């Protein structure tokens, strides 16, 4: 596999800037769901684990890859579930008459 170092560094840098600008705008109100959401998105590492386990190059790599898939998948499922549960709870006082 060719390691295109410079392109990767560009991508990392630009993504860092985008992340900084986008996340700066997130209201402190939502910082807990933000953290569980980024956690779920971060579990995209599962794609690396899937290829590792699926290619079955050695038993060792398949076992580690399989455990890694379990760990990442639980983050994906749990992370999205709890983020949505939290966000459902945030309501304004307007529509609901007291």
């Amino acid at each position, binding site marked *: 596999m060719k390691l295109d170092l410079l392109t990767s560094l560009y991508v990392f840098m630009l993504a860092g800037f985008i992340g900084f600008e986008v996340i700066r705008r997130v209201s402190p109100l939502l910082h807990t769901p933000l953290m569980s959401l980024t956690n779920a998105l*971060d579990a995209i590492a599962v794609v690396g684990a*899937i290829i590792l386990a699926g*290619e079955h190059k050695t038993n060792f790599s*398949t076992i580690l890859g399989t455990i*890694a898939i379990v760990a990442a998948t639980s983050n994906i499922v749990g992370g999205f*579930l709890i983020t949505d549960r939290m966000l459902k709870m945030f309501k304004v006082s307007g529509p609901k008459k007291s």
Partner: protein
Amino acid sequence: MMSEFASTQLIEVTYLIATALFILSLKWMSSPATARRGVWAGELGMLLAVAGTLLHHGIVDYKWLAAALVLGTIIGVPLGKVAMTAVPQRTALSHAFGALCVTLVGTAEFYLRAPSVPPFMMAVLGMEVILGSLTFTGSLMAAGKLQEVLPQRPITYKGQNVVNLAVLAIAVIVAAILVLHPERVYLYPLIVILPLIFGVLMIIPIGGADMPTVISLLNSYAGLSAAAMGFVLDNKLLIIAGALDGASGFILSVNMSKAMNRSFSNVLFGAFGQDQASAAGGAETRPVRSASAEEAASILGAANKVVIVPGYGMAVSQAQHKVRELYDVLTKRGVDVRFGIHPVAGRMPGHMNVLLAEADIPYDKLMEMDDANGDFAQTDVALVIGANDVTNPAARTDASSPIYGMPILDVDKARTVMVIKRGMSAGFAGIDNPLYYSDKTLMLFGDAKSFVGSIVRELSGGAGH
């Protein structure tokens, strides 16, 4: 079956779309009105990327993949359904899982390529594995402290920083040796084991009040280790997702450190060197004014404007639903009730907001620190529920106080201050709070949930007659 070229192209396209969806997902998190759409975008992106990856031409065996995906889902569902009060430890646990995935993949990649690992790849792989391992044990320790299966008090000893940093430094040096001599495969276990030890050591001196900073920091480490994994696998989607997560954790860490008046290097090194124990000092027996639920109720009922300041104590006693009842009964009487929320109240960023939202309190009644501080001068009653250090006026006035300079909620500017507290013990940081001895302060001693419940009973009983 698709040709190898076509499947690679297809995977790249799904990754491209997933990247766009991930960025939109975070963008939509900026407001509660669009945030749920953000979750859907994230889910769609994830689904596309995983489905695309399953088409990868090199995959020869789907049986284990399917089993692992199902098992992960079985573990993930209950983790997505924990009680809202358990969200901080759940978050710490998910950082640990993310870091575990990254460390395992990094380790497998090393042994697949060893002994001929190109220097750059070895460097990022070293970073991936070091960050991943220390985040794994660090997050497990944090989750254990938050779940109270481990002692929550910070444990400190002489030379702690030197020992900790030495362990990490050796790991980095070993990684550097591996970059120059990747054929020394036997050294590899050290760059996993030493950071695992460092992760434990790093969290030992951390107390509960430091948790919001530490969780944010671990979040950032988890993201950066995933980005490093993206470099190793030459996977742009992973680099981007890791960079976004790293940036998010970084911003939250900086916010938290500002809210605690900590220097940035202090945050980067995991909040070392807090000599909190020394601040405890001798217990004072200065007089305080205490009041009953009945008296508190009559003062609250007569007020025009009340600001409630919640803290970790509210979470511990699960008082948020009783607080909602108090909010209802006061609002019905025409009292303007709002909430003043300190950024580090609770055990993770935004902890209080989630608990109050769970209790159905409208989020437009939740004020950030600066807005709340503009309001206290016109506030009749500031009701502090289970918060301590974030209301301590010594942070403004007493240069010798360990929390001097930390931005606080100026509850002492309100006409009357009421503090619900179990007893006179000092807060987590072990710092005495002069607020309690002020003559405009009434101490309401008791469990937050039952005390707020009694106030509600008094108020709703009184309304009928």
